[in-house]
């Protein structure tokens, strides 16, 4: 079972490593890159906690092998915002009680960032649909819904 050399750009930085083919992109990000903001919940594509952007598309990084991302541009939660510089989506989650324990939050924030880019003026139904691939077990979804509404409205106001 031969290891494979991969080079993946992660948050703008080229990362090169020799990986087992069975290593998921999620494990590559956490263990090879030390980017532990990408969380692993179910590890079989149900919970959405591990969502990252691959070439701009939100995907479950537990359902992508690192070898499949060879040559791709990956954006993790660390590439979206920083503790002293929250992204608009992160700020909206903080302001509207969109998180409690925070475990699922990176996946939500990445998914919502991609969703709002593609649906800048979403209806509530579209927001619910856009959130359906991420599970939260403690905050409750109403605060998250309010955060997405506020982030969308804020972006509309800015671009006006």
């Amino acid at each position, binding site marked *: 079972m031969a290891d494979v050399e991969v080079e993946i750009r992660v948050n703008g930085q080229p990362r090169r490593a020799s990986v087992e*083919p069975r290593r998921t992109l999620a494990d590559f990000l956490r263990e090879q890159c030390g980017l532990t903001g990408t969380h692993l919940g179910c*590890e*079989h594509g149900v919970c959405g906690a591990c969502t990252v952007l691959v070439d701009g598309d939100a995907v*479950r990084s537990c359902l992508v092998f690192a070898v*499949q991302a060879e040559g791709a541009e990956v954006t993790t939660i660390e590439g979206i915002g920083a503790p002293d510089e929250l992204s608009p989506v992160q700020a909206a989650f903080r302001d509207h009680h969109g998180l409690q324990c925070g475990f699922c939050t990176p996946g939500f924030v990445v998914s919502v960032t991609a*969703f709002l880019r593609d649906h800048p003026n979403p209806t509530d139904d579209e927001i619910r649909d856009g959130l359906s691939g991420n599970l939260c077990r403690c905050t409750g979804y109403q605060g998250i819904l309010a955060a997405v509404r506020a982030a969308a409205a804020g972006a509309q106001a800015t671009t006006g």
Partner: protein
Amino acid sequence: MKPAPFDYHVPESVDDAVGLLASLGDTAKLLAGGQSLVPMLALRLAVFEHLVDLRRVEELRGIERRNGSLWVGAGTRQAVIEASDEVRAAAPLLAQATPLIGHFQIRNRGTVGGSLAHADSAAEYPAVALTLDAELEAQSPRGRRTIPATEFFTGVWSTALDEDELLLGVLLPVWEGRCGFAIEELARRHGDFALAGATVAVELDCDDRVARCAIGLLGLDSVPRRGSAAETAAVGRAIHELDPQEIGRAAVAELDNVPADLHAPADYRRRVGAEMVSRAWTRAVEEAGRG
């Protein structure tokens, strides 16, 4: 939740992919979008010594008209299908079914060929292919062949594809004229596999009679099914004479292998199936009537 070790292959062409399958035998599996295969590997429901990744095989991607059909390359991602004007115009049923697959993050990776070859009887694309009398193109070391959708789905997660055969694309006949299409399904949560669902394609003649129709059933057997008895009963009849509830009951009457599990007993699934047919029929006929 880690897959067992495997060797990884990335062919650049269909010929190379088929060659790899032929030389590696049944220890190899094709990897398309991986949205069904990778969970099965993670849960170790499936173990393969070799994965043959199709991501570099450009010939498997694309959406184009070919004679009276729409060809969709097996490697075309569901998100691309969802955004395609060509699909909306030429295969409205495929367009309507796509947003019901999983979640947008899944559709960013999942492919039409992967869904058809995985052949889950509760999935949307197999039912759409069966409803539209699609043809599936495949290649093996013995050459290329075309498999009618009616012969493609052979059992639980099983198809007519040989172990060294690669699905190239699907040809969906384009329905012209006064047509309507609808898909309805009941899932406990959005994005889950449906407990039961139905697809309907209907064409009306200028006197509002059913010129032809097709009813697909998903989640109601180990394979996607057609409601053939209901189709036969409806053809030639004026639409105002047809009771959608009756069509729903007729469509599920012949089913003899309705799944039962902790989510729903067989009898409930059958009744949901009849209702989904009824709703899909009503919507499809309304749309056809506007044409």
